[in-house]
């Protein structure tokens, strides 16, 4: 009886709005608007009445620093139960950490507890984000941004030291601009020289 009622306060162990909106979309794949550019979810929701997260033991973990190590993730996430597997998210080209990972527990309960007790707390001095995930599949460990990292790190206009500074697209844009300026300055100096 009371089990069927929604709780009087929200639960933190529910999948995120991101996950839900991804699934409603029903487009099985498409790189653009996904969560930080990774963690693709191949679950056609309407065909399967079974909730793919019902027994989920895996979590997507986001907003990590590029410098956070597996050992640090282990140390924190083990507080919710033994970790079965940890897959670090890597830059598609450099194979270096690019700020996310998948943590797999042995039990669904441990994964839920992790959502409740660890999601939204700090690791390596950053607030990390956790989301229930239907399970890791090969290929999902790579960033899906144009330059190999996560999509959110392409166009980010805030300077985030733990995630490579500015967004990469913006960085390269600025570099090009800097290059042009230098060339122009060079030009002007030459002009000056000539005038003299």
């Amino acid at each position, binding site marked *: 009886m009371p089990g069927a009622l929604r709780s009087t*306060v929200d639960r*933190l162990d529910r999948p995120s709005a991101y996950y839900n909106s991804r699934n409603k979309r029903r487009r099985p794949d498409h790189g653009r608007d996904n969560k930080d550019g990774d963690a693709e979810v191949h679950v056609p929701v309407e065909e399967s009445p079974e909730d793919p997260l019902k027994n989920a033991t895996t979590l997507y973990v986001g907003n990590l620093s590029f410098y956070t190590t*597996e050992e*640090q993730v*282990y140390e*924190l996430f083990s*507080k919710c139960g033994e970790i079965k597997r940890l897959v670090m998210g890597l830059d598609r080209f450099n194979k270096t950490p690019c700020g996310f990972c998948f943590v797999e527990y042995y039990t669904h309960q441990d994964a839920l507890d992790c959502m*409740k007790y*660890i999601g939204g707390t700090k690791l390596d001095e950053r607030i990390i984000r956790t989301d229930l995930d239907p399970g890791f599949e090969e290929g999902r460990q790579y960033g899906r941004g144009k330059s190999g990292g996560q999509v959110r790190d392409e166009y980010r206009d805030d300077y985030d030291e733990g995630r490579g500074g500015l967004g990469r697209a913006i960085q390269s844009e600025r570099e090009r601009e800097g290059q042009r300026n230098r060339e122009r300055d060079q030009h002007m100096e030459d002009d000056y020289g000539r005038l003299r």
Partner: protein
Amino acid sequence: MADHDRRQPAGGYNNRKRRYREDDDYDRRPQRRRYDAPLPVRIRKQLLGLAESPLRRWHEEVQSIAHVLADNYEDQELRTSFLDLVLQMLIEQPLKTPFVAAVVLVANSLKPDILSDLLTRVATATEEKVSVGEWRDVKLYLKFLACLQSALEGDGLFPLLEELFSRAVDLQTASSDDTIGTELVKIILLTIPYIMAAAPAQWQQKAAELMDKTDVIASEPHALQVLIDPYHAEEGTESPTANMSLIGLLQKQLQTEALNGWELSCLPRPWQMPPEEIEQQEKLDNAQKHTLPNISIPEKVVAGPRPLFPEIYFSVYVNQDIESVPPVSSIASSLIRDGLLDTINILDFNRGVTARFLIDVDCYFAPGTFVKRATPFDRLRDVEGDRSTWKPEDVAVDAVFSQIFALPAPEHKLVYYHSVLTEACKIAPAAVAPSLGRAIRYSYQNTHRLDLELCYRFLDWFTHHLSNFGFMWKWTEWVDDVNLPDMHPRKAFILGALDKEIRLSFAQRIKGTLPEPYQALIGPEKEQDTPEFKFNDDHTPFAAEGREIAALLKRKAPDEEIQPIIDRIHSAALDQAIDPLVSSTDVFMTAVCWVGSKSLSHVLACIERTKDRLLDSGAASEAARAQIITAVVSYWSAHPGVAITIIEKLLNYSIITPGAVIDWALAGDRAGPYGQALSKSWVFELVFNSVVKVTSRLRQVISSGSNETTEEEVANMRELFKNMEDALISWAQGTKDQIMDPVVSDGGEDLIKRWGERWLRVFRRRSAIEEAFLLEHKAVS
């Protein structure tokens, strides 16, 4: 009423995602009337928000809801949603129960049907919870019914309490180890004050009679209390909590309260109307009374899903020169703690809301119960007269600490309680952080007599907490302890804490947070990401073989290519008259560690590839098993956390056994000479994790009902505990050979004995609890 609808002008129906809305945009929009939520939704919102406002207009809130409710009670949807919500609120937001009761009482004075419907529902729900042994829910329903005592016919709730008591007596007479009877008495004692606050005067006699009866059970120390005392007092001293059995305290507190005419000054009485509401008060006084529907208690009550233990009242704010929390002589200490603990343990699914309740604790008790929020401790001295000096933050923090320090275990994973404190600190840093600081100081000063398992929990919480707040701590105040011997409990705590901090961060960062005297505690080896490979040094025996094996492992060569090198090590070892298998195991395992040193994934992949060889080594001899552990721990000696994780995985592969880990850590001096291993927190962590692995596996097997391999596993577990007992008792009694070493006979011997005793207590308790579990499940099956 309209006030309530507009209480949160920016909330609910606005689109919060309009982040970039410009001001002029705002102006152009026509100010239309806000959409009115349907009645049931409004009532829900108001009911859920009861008492949350610090303005404390309790009687207005209560009457407003009650009137709308009474006026529209014919609305089927409203009625259903109201009844459902009340029942749910009682067991989800128990601090609001008196306020919900007040709504119901006022509603009863307007429309008696409401209460009669509700009583039927609550009675049924209570009966269900009794039948499955959900005692906390039973307690929460009874608390509600107690608040309604003035609207109940006859003796109201008393007959039910008396019946519960008679079950308690039966259970306690049958066995002194019984914990259900203790729980029932606790429920009775916690219900009485709510009855007395709701309906003073006429129930004094009844209450006195009931308390006369409970006295026998409540005042007798429970057989299990010694086992779960948070303190492990040194010989010749008494534990600070020796007389702090919760029901024992409750009994005394209630007797004191009875002598003072049941003042119960901390309890809110939102059903009492202010003088200007005399009309409503009269209606309330003359409202219709109802017979409490029968709630039958089965002859044989059950323990329910959670194991029950007697409870001990624990506080980190005892012995202060000014009372910042209610003293144990006051019923307020038990009632406030009870409300907070229920809230904390029920709302584990939203730590933010839990933390909010903790910060708002003063909203849910009588005015004047606490000092103003965020009053600094030093200013408590300035509080005048007999006004309260209880700090709401201290009371809240104390409640969470009582869970972190609860034996055998709190209801949820420890990390939940960490997260609640983190959230509370985030909501009100200026108020909560100083309270936490004093809690930390108290725990630190008492590490020597806290139970060792709790010391470890404290360490784990402390470092995790710091990691959420920039690793800021006033280390300067402990500088004097830096020069203590490493085995001193406080020094051991410091060393353990620094290691744990580094694990969550990195050495350089942590060094940057420490005053000068601590710098030496973090050596250069801790700043090195990849430890040296000892076989790179030609002076190390088998250096060439070590490098060759490493090279082969690196290029993932097949095992056949490795075997010849192993054979070379074996024959060389035989020539030198050393154990060949131990030598080759050391070389191989060390090489695996080095090749995998880049990250845990690397080493785990390497173990996966070489597991057959490792399995053979591990199976070959006890010495080889020990050598596997030695190799891992010595390679990662600067980062024991990594070693612990690797060993955990080796256990999963059954390459080593839990017995080998325990033997390695406790029997010889491999984890530290002369018993120093016992003072190292990472050794405790390693052993504790290994034991928990065994016990939780066994519990899983037993709970799943398959009893094929159980007998053998039970025997294995018992042997494990037996071996620990044997290893530890010789440390505790000082009969271990190593302890006799002259180097440590400068008083260090007593330190080691004490560490031995503390370890022994922890694992004897674990063993006893597992035996109890086995017994219970044998009884069931």
